[in-house]
């Protein structure tokens, strides 16, 4: 009963987000994000019907739809890159470099492991496979958030909600899947609550953050370009002067 309540709350909030997106015409602004919400809304509804009428096939449907939403979920990260990092060419370069490094490191790790340990497989069960995919997702998200945090990039209400909601869901999924694959079926009951509950938390955050359209603050790049040359020349002068003072200070 409790599981079903969590389920219904998720479907209701997904529907609410989609309804609000129609009111504010936000789907064209965040197409990848709303594709993900549509995908989860449809798969949750489908899974509910399967659970009610074809319970023996539920496991199969669950893992299939889970992988579909996991892949579509990468669109949320594309949305973050597109809206948060696009106006900042330097930070975007850093973010791109970080994402490529994570992919390359993961790929190299899997290849090397297969070469060194014959017969080794990245995942022996669906739980482990999902956990490993979530790990890659978490690493990429971590790298992107680190760039956003490091360069103090301003996030609007919509984007901040997307980032926080999705981040909570990915982190909770990663931790619960890791615990589940480690402890076997002992934590099954807890996992069945934690996974959908963390999704409900994410959807609740999205419903609040995306209640109305709030664009991401765009930096005034034109004004910056105009005053940047004088800015750099002044800064270089100040740094040079500061250095000479410091050198005097260290070696009087």
């Amino acid at each position, binding site marked *: 009963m409790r599981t079903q309540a969590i389920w219904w709350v998720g479907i209701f909030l997904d529907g609410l987000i989609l309804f609000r997106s129609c009111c504010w015409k936000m789907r064209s602004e965040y197409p990848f994000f709303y594709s993900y919400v549509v995908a989860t809304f449809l798969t949750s509804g489908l899974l509910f019907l399967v659970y009610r009428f074809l319970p023996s096939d539920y496991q199969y449907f669950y893992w299939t739809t889970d992988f579909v939403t996991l892949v579509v979920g990468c669109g949320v990260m594309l949305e973050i890159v597109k809206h948060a990092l696009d106006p900042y*060419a330097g930070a975007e*370069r850093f973010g791109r470099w970080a994402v490529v490094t994570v992919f390359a490191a993961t790929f190299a790790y899997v290849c090397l492991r297969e070469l060194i340990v014959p017969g080794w497989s990245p995942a022996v069960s669906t739980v482990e496979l999902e956990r490993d995919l979530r790990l890659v997702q*978490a690493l990429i998200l971590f790298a992107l958030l680190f760039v956003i945090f490091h360069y103090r990039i301003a996030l609007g209400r919509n984007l901040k909600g997307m*980032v926080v909601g999705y*981040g909570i869901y990915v982190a909770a999924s990663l931790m619960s899947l890791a615990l589940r694959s480690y402890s076997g079926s002992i934590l099954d009951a807890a996992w069945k609550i934690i996974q959908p509950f963390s999704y409900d938390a994410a959807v609740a955050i999205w419903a609040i953050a995306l209640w109305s359209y709030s664009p991401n603050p765009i930096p005034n790049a034109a004004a910056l370009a105009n005053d940047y*040359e004088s800015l750099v020349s002044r800064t270089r002068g100040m740094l040079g*002067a500061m250095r000479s003072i410091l050198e005097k200070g260290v070696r009087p």
Partner: protein
Amino acid sequence: MHLILFLLLGAGLLVLLFLIARRARPVAGSAQSLREARQALSALQEWALPSGVLERVFAKQDMAYVLSSTPPDVQRLFLQERRKVAFLWVCQVHKSVGLLRNFHLSQARFYERLSLGTEIELAFSFAALLFACRVLQVALYAGGSSAAPWMIEKTAEAVTRLCQVSEKSLEFLSPAPEKAIVDGPASGNFPV
């Protein structure tokens, strides 16, 4: 071992999300960060870094004189006041370095030709310097102004290195200013 890594990554992600969610004021535009950087540099130049100030705040001769030829009350007051001044000096350097970092980040994020190596080097230099300031504060709190003269020297050396790297990192941002410094009227506006 794997489980711990997964849990740590999940927890790290949640911490980062928390920090991003609670951050009230991101780095402002160019005008404000430029003003703050100027304030930071002029504060450093005017009183925090000149060699006379450094020598006087941490001079051993003054302390030796006061400790040898004044009553205990005066000695205690002297040590208290000196610790306060030294503490203020470190706080000012810490604040100024933080403002300079903000200035650098607020500008560098826009430039496509940003050098990743320089950025990483700078990030470590800033972090090391801010950490050194904190260590210095603890040392001063625990042992007074005479506790860490070598650390003061190391901190000043680190600031010097940081300035060299910062200057180098700013070169790629715009090749034109080189000329502006020599010819342009902007060169006369340095607050130095």
